[in-house]
């Protein structure tokens, strides 16, 4: 191979090597923020797709049932002052806990839907993608926490409390709450990370 070709190959090999190296805090925050922003664009599509497959009342236009909550999933809504006064570690670990629960719940919803709606590859694919992104965001947040020198929250099985004998309607409701909360938590994560981004500029 001529020398320029060698150089080209070298440059191709370099990025994986560099990615293995620890990246800076600002870079971690920026990556996490970008991912959260990207996720935010697709959350409403996921919710709408999900509702469309569940029949009335879910598929009715303008359906909303804020009273439906899941005990196994922490609510994303919080008082602003409470949220703002949280320190970085608390804020991040709350989000981490929520996304950890969300990944498990999204898996449960996907399983349920593959049973109820086997002929809906779009919904199943979207649920799978959402779970993978939530996991990705978890990884990014972990990197930030490591960079900040914060202790990692212990992984717990939030779904251990889920009853498997839930009725079909209950499972539809669960899916609704999970996809809805996934959106809410993504919105919150964007705000969390924006705050961090401002605090630790590149």
């Amino acid at each position, binding site marked *: 191979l001529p020398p320029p070709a060698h150089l080209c190959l070298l440059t191709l090999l370099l990025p994986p090597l560099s990615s293995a190296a620890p990246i800076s805090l600002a870079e971690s925050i920026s990556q996490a923020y970008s991912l959260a922003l990207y996720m935010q664009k697709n959350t409403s599509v996921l919710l709408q797709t999900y509702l469309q497959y569940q029949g009335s009342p879910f598929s*009715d236009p303008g359906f909303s049932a804020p009273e*439906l909550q899941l005990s196994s999933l922490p609510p994303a809504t919080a008082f602003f002052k409470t949220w703002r006064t949280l320190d970085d570690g608390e804020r991040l670990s709350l989000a981490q806990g929520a996304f950890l629960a969300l990944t498990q719940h999204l898996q449960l919803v996907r399983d349920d839907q593959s049973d*109820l709606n086997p002929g809906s590859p779009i919904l199943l694919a979207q649920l799978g993608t959402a779970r993978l992104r939530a996991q990705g965001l978890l990884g990014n947040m972990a990197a930030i926490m490591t960079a900040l020198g914060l202790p990692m929250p212990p992984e717990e099985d939030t779904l251990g409390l889920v009853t498997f004998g839930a009725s079909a*309607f209950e499972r539809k409701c669960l899916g609704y709450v999970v996809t809805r909360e996934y959106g809410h938590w993504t919105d919150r994560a964007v705000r969390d990370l924006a705050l961090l981004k401002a605090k630790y500029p590149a």
Partner: protein
Amino acid sequence: MALFVVFQTTFFLTLLSLRTYQSEVLAERLPLTPVSLKVSTNSIHQSLHLQWTVHNLPYHQELKMVFQIQISRIETSNVVWVGNYSTTVKWNQVLHWSWESELPLECATHFVRMKSVMDDASFPEPNFWSNWSSWEEVSVQDSLGRGILFVFPKDKLVEEGSNVTICYVSRNIQNNVSCYLEGKQIHGEQLDPHVTAFNLNSVPFIRNRGTNIYCEASQGNVSKGIEGIVLFVSKVLEEPKDFSCETQDFKTLHCTWDPGTDTALGWSKQPSQSYTLFESFSGEKKLCTHKNWCNWQITQDSQETYNFTLIAENYLRKRSVNILFNLTHRVYLMNPFSVNFENVNATNAIMTWKVHSMRNNFTYLCQIELHGEGKMMQYDVSIKVNGEYFLSELEPATEYMARVRCADASHFWKWSEWSGQNFTTLEAAPSEAPDVWRSVNSEPGNHTVTLFWKPLSKLHANGKILFYNVVVENLDKPSRSELRSIPAPANSTKLILDRCSYQICVTANNSVGASPASIIVISVDPENKEVEEERIAGTDGRFSLSWKPQPGDIIGYVVDWCDHPQDVLQWKNVGPNTTSTVISTDAFRPGVRYDFRIYGLSTKRIACLLEKKTGYSQELAPSDNPHVLVDMLTSHSFTLSWKDYSTESQPGFIQGYHVYLKSKARQCHPRFQKAVLSDGSECCKYKIDNPEEKALIVDNLKPESSYEFFVTPFTSAGEGPNATFTKVTTPDEHSSMLIHILLPMVFCVLLIMIVCYLKSQWIKETCYPDIPDPYKSSILSLIKFKENPHLTIMNVSDCIPDAIEVVSKPEGTKIQILGTRKSLTETELTKPNYLYLLPTEKNHSGPGPCICFENFTYNQAASDSGFCGHVPVSPKAPPSMLGLMTSPENVLKALEKNYMNSLGEVPAGETSLNYVSQLASPMSGDKDSLPTNPVEPPHCSEYKMQMAVPLRLALPRPTENSSLSSITLLDPGEHYR
């Protein structure tokens, strides 16, 4: 003995008393009340499960009992169900019984009690019902947990069309609860302040993912909660249709059926229905893995009869169909194999095939289908293992497709699949003579015969035609016949024959042989007969032709014509008894003239032209208008003519012409009619009905008027195209008269001129005879005779008749002296130059603005001194004008020309000179130089009187230049080198 009797009696009594005691004990305990009644619920099946025991039953004894069960809802008095349950009861047995509730158990408290009665034959009547057990209360509501609203039953599976009761439990009676089925509100019956039930009758199947029913609790407009259920409605399981079994090899039975609707539901609530095959004789059962077919292995050769039951089953229903058959009656043969054709020739072939052997001594019924030439033939044949069929009456050189299928001949069940093969029959000699026709062009000494033939149809060609043989035989002179072979795609050939009768035979040949010959005889004089052409009209692209029957032996008629624009000869054969035919092809085009010739064919195969027809399949209007010439234009008439217009090559028969004439006059001329043109303008129209009349005299016109005309031919389809009118203006009446006078006059003048020319000598002599030469005059002799030596005849050449002083114009003046060959141009002059044509002594007299002529006529002195003496004749004379003019005659001539005959003629013989003109104009004709002259000399033509006027006084002072120029001018050596 007595003791024995007593003992026996005692024994019997004891036995009796024991029996009596037993009966009393049973009678005392009866009726046996059910005890330990426990009621549990099954939420999935919405059923109450009862279990109880009956105490005090005899040990090791089975008794038949009837239990009456009462079920109440909400309160004990509200009995919703009463029923008996009969069973045999053993000692210490726990009895079980279930009851399915229509209303979900969660929505209401249920109460159960029962009583029993002995229904056993071993106990004598009467039997009494036991007392009721105490009411057993069943309530699931307490176990519902937290929540404000609950809807039941959850995930119930029902069949389409069944009735379902659903209910909700609302913890808070303040809440307003509305329930919806797939978005439509449903209304129910309130069972208690917390519970409302909805009876859904005949629930429809909406989707296999279930039907959502939900209730919403709200206070005012604020939603407090939403709860629902999914009702899984299954389609009703259908009975399998078209269930049948058959075998191809006596080893496997292949059973098929139409499964109908799939009743599978989502959320694994119900899978697709299962199918099970059960054979009753063998008692074997097989669960089928496919939903519409199943294979059954035949294990026992001896079993001939089968009784199959196909059971379709889902969670809600079971359906079955049954067939009973003999195995040998259900034989579906495998398709035949080794299909071959043997001994294939032009018209027949032997088809062979084989059948998969089933059992010994099996007879097969086979069906053969033969497809070829767009036809299908079917044959049935009964065979053993090897099949053979003789296919006959086939067409030569044809591709056929033959296929065969077989079935059991003894018990026809169904045909096997087809097995087929293609084959092609061999060629045979063409079966029919080609259809041949000819066209003859007679030329002096010979005729050119073009033979045409039509390709044989596939039916008659019997193979691929390779060539055509044309045999020409002279009928008049015994000679060898001539054979020509023309390769196949050709359909014509040209023969040049002398003026003899010839017989021409044409055969078509393929690889096998020749067709019958088609014979045509060309007579000595084939087409000499003059036949009148008749016009016919075609309709809808077809021509109907009819002709007079021909006396004599006619074997048929031929009609021929040419296709346009390809110019291909076409013909049609018509039988001898027919005298009319319709010629119809797609090739006929509108606006094209077709010429049909009708020939009769004699028995000697000589064609004789009978009639000619010509016509158009559809006439069109003429495509162009004639080119019209206007002749004989007079003040009152003109003639229009279009002799060059061809009436033959038009898209229709020209019937005549329309001549349109426009004039300013409103009135049309006689013979003309008023007509309105397409553009709305009015004009006069004249119709000429004869197509050969190609001229029209338009008369009765007004002089000096303008007329416009337009000539267009017409056919039955209409006129020619619109074109512009041509304008003609009639001339003035007098001008013609003038011409009448002028022409003769011109003629006369010309005549006179010619006469004059011819007689010029005479005229000359008459009008102006030659001046006699004095030398040659007779007078000379007379003079000599008088001997006067001083007297001589003046020689004209010796004289300088006059002196002309030419005053040259200022600088730039061109002075031209036009001689026979010279012109002088003086451009270098900047000062006025004057050309003096003077006696040489006065050469340097100053230039003046005037041209001065000294009139010697009046110059007495000069006259006295002698004319000739004034002229310098010595060789010393400066080469002035004399040098220019080779002779004084030239000078004279030049002067004559340039100075308006100023000197006039100087007859040499006269002693006195006649000076004709008294005026002279300035010599210079060049006006360009005039403005450059600051001092324009006064224009003056002066007639010099005899006074001696010094020239210098009258003239401006000459400069050196001017004098130089004068010299230069006068010195031809300088200028004409």
